[in-house]
């Protein structure tokens, strides 16, 4: 078996390399789709996730499946990768009807999947991770593995250190390894689930190159996303899911012949239905966003001051080094930067979740350097975490309790240490209404809510009860378009009408340009520059993001 493995890989890789034949076949037409779903339905208690979905995925084509959160994209992907069994309908691979009853079966059928979150084992090396699923041999065939990896890397134009532990790789690199892993056992179909959600702009660019390469090699790439511009950039075929149904699908004949704006209008119409025209004005949809002008006449009243704040770098982090920032009343100060340049460290040190090794933090003129998380919270300093599932909410507790999670034991929700359910229920109902949280009830377990609604729970909690300064860490990360817009409106409204200062930490430059008065740029834990927001400022910010131009 150990001897069998490399030959197997070789055949597969040569398939990859001899792509011309496949490509010719694909364009010539007679060869059928690599994978096809026909009238596939899948229901979960209370929701029909896929409703008679029919789609065909062809060789040599990037097929973007676009839809908002909860549209049924992930369910469809899980059916193809063998995680779910459809209730009805057929799945065809290379024209034959198949039953994909396990992830293993999917791999045997040549369907490889790259999930949204990394699945590599951190302490294993790249090569070990790749060879995990291999055979039943006693010994790892390292030589053969190295050869195979080398061929993959060459084909895809990647540089890979086979002996680096997976934990040492950046998220973008990890994803590249995930892609190789999905192709390792000879997949002809590659499913990518929201692959850009974890990546920096550079990472996205590299991913796009890899995807084009794979398409040219004749693979069928299924690209699942909720970002419209990604579908426009990458898709040969674009299909839209909405409420579990296919509401639009355009093949290469349409996508290639229509202009970008025509395609965009088609897609927006299908995704959001009638009256979606106004959405085209929005950053996510519009191409190329530029800065809005800094608001003048803000009161010169500093509410949050960071003086030479430094944080020790934990493993895999860059820390924060002598950061000076001043945030005024009603101001939105954007903190731009490529992911992993100290964003979380900065947010957490302000919130009090991390200790400073030097410097001072002042809230309304008073030092809070020695105050704990709870004290800062009650002084009006709020932190909207970027990890709403991991630390922002407690999935097993009710929505109501999550809304008062930071006020446990405080009046009026507790009196003498005893819970007052009516008070909590009352406040929770108001917040659910005010923040448009879609939940069956305030007693619903928080973990059953969608990502967008979880974020609304977090926002409702942080932005209520008299906030003065709010630190937002990637507030719209992973949210669908409508929720994203709602969240941004709320940040803006709160700053403009209620004078709540916002420190907007985001890796989405468009978001920062759209909302900020001033923009600070974080690079390797240092502020490389602070600029006034203005039309045309993005180039300068981009340079700062790469570390240049410190003298500004």
């Amino acid at each position, binding site marked *: 078996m150990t001897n069998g493995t490399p030959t197997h890989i070789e055949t597969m890789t040569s398939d990859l390399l001899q792509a011309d034949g496949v490509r010719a076949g694909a364009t010539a037409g007679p060869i059928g789709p690599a994978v096809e779903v026909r009238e596939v339905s899948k229901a979960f208690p209370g929701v029909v996730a896929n409703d008679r979905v029919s789609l065909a995925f062809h060789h040599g084509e990037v097929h973007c499946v676009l839809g908002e959160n909860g549209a049924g994209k992930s369910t469809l992907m899980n059916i193809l990768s063998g995680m779910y069994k459809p209730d009805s309908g057929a799945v065809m691979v290379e024209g034959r009807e198949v039953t994909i009853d396990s992830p293993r079966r999917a791999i045997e059928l040549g369907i490889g999947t790259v999930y949204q979150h990394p699945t590599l084992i951190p302490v294993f090396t790249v090569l070990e991770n790749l060879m995990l699923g291999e055979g039943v041999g006693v010994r790892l065939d390292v030589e053969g593995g190295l050869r195979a990896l080398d061929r993959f890397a060459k084909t895809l134009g990647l540089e890979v250190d086979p002996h680096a532990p997976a934990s040492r790789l950046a998220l973008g690199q990890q994803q590249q390894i995930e892609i190789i892993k999905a192709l390792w056992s000879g997949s002809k179909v590659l499913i990518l689930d929201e692959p850009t959600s974890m990546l920096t702009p550079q990472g996205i660019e590299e991913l796009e190159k890899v995807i084009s390469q794979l398409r040219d090699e004749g693979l069928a790439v299924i690209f699942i996303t909720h970002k419209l511009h990604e579908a426009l950039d990458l898709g040969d075929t674009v299909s839209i899911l909405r409420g579990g149904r296919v509401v639009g699908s355009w093949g290469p004949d349409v996508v290639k012949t229509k202009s970008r704006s025509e395609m965009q209008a088609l897609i927006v119409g299908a995704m959001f239905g009638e009256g979606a025209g106004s959405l085209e004005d929005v950053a996510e949809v519009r191409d190329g966003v530029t800065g809005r002008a800094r608001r003048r006449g803000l009161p010169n009243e500093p509410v949050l001051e960071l003086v030479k704040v430094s944080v020790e770098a934990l493993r895999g982090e860059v820390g924060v080094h002598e950061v000076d920032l001043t945030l005024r009343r009603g101001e939105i100060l954007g903190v731009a930067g490529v992911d992993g340049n100290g964003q979380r460290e900065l947010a957490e040190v302000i919130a009090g979740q991390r200790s400073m090794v030097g410097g001072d933090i002042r809230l309304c003129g008073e030092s809070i350097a020695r105050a704990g998380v709870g004290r800062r919270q009650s002084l009006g300093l709020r932190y909207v*975490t970027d990890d709403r599932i991991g630390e922002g909410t407690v*999935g097993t507790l009710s929505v109501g309790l999550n809304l008062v999670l930071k006020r446990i034991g405080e009046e009026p929700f*507790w009196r003498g240490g005893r*819970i007052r359910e009516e008070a909590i229920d009352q406040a929770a*109902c108001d917040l659910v209404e005010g923040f448009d949280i879609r939940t*069956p009830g305030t007693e*619903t377990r928080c*973990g059953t809510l969608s990502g967008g609604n979880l974020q609304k729970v977090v926002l409702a909690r942080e932005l209520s009860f008299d906030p003065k300064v709010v630190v937002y860490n990637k507030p719209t990360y992973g949210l669908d378009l409508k929720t994203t817009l709602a969240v941004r409106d709320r940040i803006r409204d709160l700053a403009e009408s209620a004078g709540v200062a916002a420190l907007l930490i985001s890796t989405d430059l468009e978001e920062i340009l759209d909302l900020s008065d001033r923009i600070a740029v974080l690079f390797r834990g240092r502020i490389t520059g602070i600029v006034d927001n203005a039309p045309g400022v993005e180039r300068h910010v981009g340079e700062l993001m790469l570390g240049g131009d410190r003298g500004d």
Partner: protein
Amino acid sequence: MVATVVTDVVSTSRAVVRGASAAKAGTSARWAWLWSLGQAIGPILLALLVSAALLLALGKNPLTFYRDIVSQGLFNKGGIQDTAIRMAPLLLMASGLIVAFRANIWNIGGDGQFLLAAALVAGAGPPLIGALPNALAFVILCVTAVVVGGGWTVVPAYLKARYGLNEIITSLMMTFVGVNFANLLIKGPFRSTTTQVPQTDVIPFKELLPRIPGTRIHVGLVLALIAVFAVHYVMTRTAFGLKLRVLGANPRAAAHAGLSIPRLTIVGFMLSGAFMGLAAAVEVLGVWGYVRADWNPNFGLPLFALVFLARLNALAVIPLVGFYAVISMGGHFAARQAALPDDFMLMIVGLILLFMTLTEYLAGRSERGGYLSAGLKKALGKGGGDE
């Protein structure tokens, strides 16, 4: 169990937010309790079925065996009193486990905390009861046991709170130390001069905890039931209980919400140990009156299964502990009748644990939620099951 079910239904029906669909919440609540019940009873029934097969294979009649258990443990006048007496320490220890497990603290060292407290109570008991009014002596001895049981958790609690050391290992190590230290005390300073075997002096039967009138059941059972209800109240209705639950369900969220994790960890751990100590006081002062060297009833392990079957709900623990007490008291009798070793009962407990794991897996797949909180699951390294 019934009481929990009722509160569950009540709280869920209160859930309906203005303008939200009431019907859906109603139906899911109607069936949720049935699921919980099945989850608690299913593994027990399966374990009894498999044990029956084993008994058949051993040439014993399982029906006779189970009938012996039930008739001795439940329907025999003396038997049911034995069962009730056995429930007292078990309920107290279960309360201690629930406090800890809810907070994601794995207090594995319950037996060590129990035995050390038992040794001290048995050692200090005879002279104290001789010198003071009984009531005062009992209070002093119970407080001593609580302090000893709680105190024995300080080392693992502090190591976990301060350095993040795994308390499964440290509390287990403390158990070895505790058990042997207890033996050392019994064989050394507390050793009775009147007996051959090493043991403490005996508290005369008349001087033990008062009985419930008309029975042999001592008031420790009442104390235990009060403790269970108190734990249930604290965990569900108070800020302190909620803080422990948040810590257990998601420690990072606890830090994010500004809870003092080290303090909660230490207080929760000590509280858990205190219940173990109280259980020891009740057992020694209510049943034995002395402790013999190398005595170890090993109450802890089966209780793990029971508190998880009860899904860490203190009230649901009562019927399960009752059931277990029937099995363990009646089981001795049945095993003797069938000429089987006493260990056969441990095997049934083992099977229950095994089938619980299976149910847990199935529950994870059907997205119903299992016995363990998310935090506990993570601590166990089980991972899966959650979205």
